[in-house]
């Protein structure tokens, strides 16, 4: 926590969790998809479902899916902008049970080039967020750092190859997490780094034989 967390963020109201956090969840989901979103099925759970409309949560999520920042004055009119941008969307209320955070959203996204992604995330207060699941893989992604995310085959040496590329570009790893479905199948790795992830890292990781997909994420705090 620093001064700018207390005197800030600068945002479109009315709620840091239900509006600003929702923008950030949408934006991170778009970055994970890695291309413009053309269709979004969005499930809202708990307080997001109950009070979302009055907080502009729905518009904030769509604004985020279009890559906007939390202080973008167009947020109240995000729906109109989405239709111009060719983004169709549908909201529904979902019940994920008591163990889910009260401000949880589930995105099913389709990208411009037919990429599809299912992402679950929640807004945990004060505009801070957490992505908790991607395509069924449990993971934790807070957007506190710039990050490199890979979907790869679960084989010996993949992590070594990726971290080697980061090391060669003098990128320091702050935190990292790996999860897999089962031994030898596919795995997801999240590497939080200090500073930014250079372009070269992304292109070099992308051509590693076991890498199925790689994404570079910006920190969510604008």
């Amino acid at each position, binding site marked *: *926590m*620093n*001064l*700018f*967390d*207390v*005197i*800030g*963020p*600068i*945002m*479109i*109201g*009315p*709620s*840091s*969790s239900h*509006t*600003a956090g929702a923008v950030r969840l949408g934006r991170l989901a778009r970055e994970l998809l890695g291309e413009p979103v053309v269709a979004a099925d969005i499930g*809202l759970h708990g*307080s997001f*479902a*109950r*009070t*979302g*409309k*009055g*907080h*502009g949560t*729905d*518009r904030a999520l769509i604004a985020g899916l279009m890559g906007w920042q939390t*202080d973008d*004055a167009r*947020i*109240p009119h995000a729906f109109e902008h989405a239709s111009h941008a060719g983004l169709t969307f549908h*909201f*529904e*209320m979902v019940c994920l049970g008591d163990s889910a955070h009260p401000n949880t959203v589930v995105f099913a996204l389709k990208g411009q080039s037919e990429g599809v992604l299912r992402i679950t995330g929640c807004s945990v*207060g*004060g*505009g801070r967020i957490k992505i908790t699941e991607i395509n069924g893989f449990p993971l934790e992604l807070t957007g506190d750092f710039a990050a490199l995310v890979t979907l790869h085959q679960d084989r010996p040496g993949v992590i070594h190859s990726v971290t080697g590329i980061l090391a060669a570009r003098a990128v320091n790893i702050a935190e990292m997490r790996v999860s897999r479905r089962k031994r030898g199948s596919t795995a997801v790795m999240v590497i939080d780094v200090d500073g930014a992830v250079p372009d070269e890292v992304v292109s070099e990781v992308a051509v590693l034989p076991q890498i199925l997909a790689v994404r570079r994420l910006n920190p969510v705090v604008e």
Partner: protein
Amino acid sequence: MEKLSLSAWLDEANASTLSFGRFCLQTQALELELTEIELSERMKQTLSVMQQAIAYGLTGVRSTGGLVGGVGLQLQQYSTGDQAARSLLGPLAAKAAAYALAANEANAAMGKICAAPTAGSSGVLPGVLFAIAEDRGINQDDLSVALLVAGAIGMVIASRASLSGAEGGCQAECGSAAAMAAGAVVDLLGGSPDQVGHAAALALKNLLGLVCDPVAGLVEVPCVKRNAGAAIIALLAADMALAGIKSVIPIDEVIDAMATVGRAMNADLRETGLGGLAATPTGLECAERIFGAKNHPLE
């Protein structure tokens, strides 16, 4: 999170013979790896957002949920012009209240605001700071230092208690905002570091125990009007501190008490929209009107 101490910072400022604002400018610039000029510029940009929020609110905007709107303008019209003398608060305090209402109405209407410390309490600092700045002819440089004082107080509260209504009730939001504003004003008007601490303590003590009970779960009722109340308490606390009145309980202990009170609050009274004003017949009726009987906001 590391527990900060406002008393320790105030003592350090005292020892260095700096005003608390100057002390905050030095220490926070170091902490954030910015020059003092860069930090001051950031604060000025924030002040500009706050000023625009007041202006947007004063256009009479209505909230997304439709429960609030236009009252900042209403109070401004009542307390200025030909019949200004009828305001019981007097021009400065009435202006602070009107601005606080307006800035928080801008928030409720999906306007651009600075969450300081939160969106729900985002009217208090703009209301107090800009009313005083206009009344006393204070420039943006001094105002940006005052904002740093407010930030320092908020950081201590965040580290020892909470700034979130969901965790600590409204005392953590409007109470913290009032403490931040009171300390900022005292520094702005030349008070000592000790007086900054007393002002923050006196403001927070007056809002201790305030619950967070938003009607329909929205940042509208009673949030907007509580911003005005917190602004007035901040001015009163600043006046008391500048008069030399001391808080018997030191600021850090008041903050710790706020944390304890927050923990003792029933969850119904911590932003869930289930208790307090939200659970009154009228509060429930408002919720039903907005979301429908079956509570299906997105259908």
